[in-house]
């Protein structure tokens, strides 16, 4: 059983200042890295015999429109079955240069998860074998989960947030 502290120290030793913003919300080790280091970091975690984080639980995206230069964050959840610890890795990328390398070379499951993230946020996964929309129709020309597309028509006056709590 590895503690979060041990994993964090190991990663700091290997990647130095390329891993930063360590947190531990609800006991889940969370850290950020750069676009260049995400694939080496995942590969290191997967193949190193001390960690064996062999399972990619989830990939998803988040948008922070006001965070200039870091508008999008790609979030990876990984799980080590051997040592039973989870790890969350975040990579911030800018809207102007919305590229990140694909993880399909490491985990086959990344294929559809990345397609879904692309479909919703327009994040481009470089090297992905088939980066097409997955849940929405091909003809769609926008990325629906972005914050600039509100759920309901903003011009409507019969549904006021302050009154109806929606």
């Amino acid at each position, binding site marked *: 059983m590895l503690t979060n502290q041990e994993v964090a120290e190991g990663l700091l030793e290997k990647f130095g200042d390329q891993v930063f913003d360590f947190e531990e*919300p609800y006991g889940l080790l969370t850290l950020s890295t750069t676009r260049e280091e995400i694939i080496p970091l995942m590969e290191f975690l997967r193949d190193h015999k001390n960690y064996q984080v062999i399972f990619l*639980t989830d990939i998803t995206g988040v948008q922070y429109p006001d965070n200039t230069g870091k508008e999008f964050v790609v979030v990876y959840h990984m799980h080590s079955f051997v040592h039973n610890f989870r790890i969350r890795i975040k990579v911030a990328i800018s809207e102007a240069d919305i590229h990140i390398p694909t993880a399909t070379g490491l985990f086959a499951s990344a294929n559809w998860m990345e397609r879904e993230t692309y479909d919703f946020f327009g994040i481009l996964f470089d090297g992905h074998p088939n980066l097409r929309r997955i849940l929405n129709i091909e003809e769609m020309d926008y990325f629906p989960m972005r914050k600039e597309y509100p759920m309901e028509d903003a011009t409507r006056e019969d549904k006021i947030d302050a009154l*109806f*709590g*929606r």
Partner: protein
Amino acid sequence: MADIELLPHNVPSQNELPELVEELTTLNLGPTHPATHGIFQNILKMDGEKIVSGEQTIGYIHRAFEKIAERRPFYQITTLTDRMNYCSSPINNLGWHMTMEKFLGVEVPKRAQYIRVLMMELARITDHIICNSILGVDTGAFTGFLYVMQKREEVYEIYEEVCGARLTTNMGRLGGMERDLSSTAIRKIKEFIKSFPPVLRELEKLLNRNRIFMDRTINVGPISAERALSYGFTGPNLRAAGVDYDVRVMNPYSSYEDFEFDVPIGQNGDTYDRYMVRNEEMWQSLRIVEQAINNLPEGPYYADAPEYYLPPKNEVYHNMEALIYHFKIVMGEIDAPAGEVYHAVEGGNGELGFYLISDGGRAPYRLHFRRPSFIYYQAYPEMCKGSSLSDAILTMSSLNVIAGELDA
């Protein structure tokens, strides 16, 4: 007859034959094919009877739950979750409540946790009997399906006693259960514990050692443990491949650590193993249900968290404070703290995860559902490559892909 002049019968020699052109047939399996058990499409390239490659098209019932969730107060999201895996909706509902409770730091009393375990395990049984009996239907045995459906009906009656609904259950509340187990519910659960084993044994007798069933399922759609892990398999499908990962054991939630049960695993990861793992899991679920009902602790069935738990109706009518809280919760005036949380439960198909990011408002800033079917269904072309179409149908059936969960 006599007028017809027969042309000289000219057989070309071997080297004069035109070169064989390999022609593949494209077959559309779905979107509304009775064998897909849901709306999703597979475009299969067939070489005669054999499948050469496949490509899936999904998203036919995509309802943008993640987007809708960003506009909804936290307690209203429950109704979105039960439309994901509609064969075991209580697991989704309670999984979402547990995510919020973990996030808000609400301690749920033991009794509520046990009732939740009860409901989740009954849901797992209904999920698995659907999958296994439909697998029987796909191999040509319709009887078993009709026979076990009666038992699902009984479980749905228990749901009705506990939450009032049958399919889209909206079960439980943030902080506990909506009502205590009634005496009728307890009676029905105890009746179910008695009456289910003979029915399940009959289904087993019908299929488990049936020569035809075994020939149709053994070595059909196999996947190795390594590939299954790489493809993000979880739940019975991963365990059939031989990896004993179960969220209930590895990261226990809702007092699962109090219960004694085994985690069945398979060896080959083929259709038969998946069937057998689900079959054994039903017995284990029944064991848990039995333990939960026999050791049901006394005490309150909801947490002392008035700002989150919707107060009981009779208090709302007679108690000023309860009325205020009722109003605040229903109108979405309760803000959650800022932060992020990931919580996973063992759903019918595997690890059902909720990744919630809150910016301190009444609705999530971002909510992502880790849907097990969505992640493992991408392995389907690899699993059915080289098999015949009828085997591919069985592979799909045994994967238990639920369209609602696939598309969210």
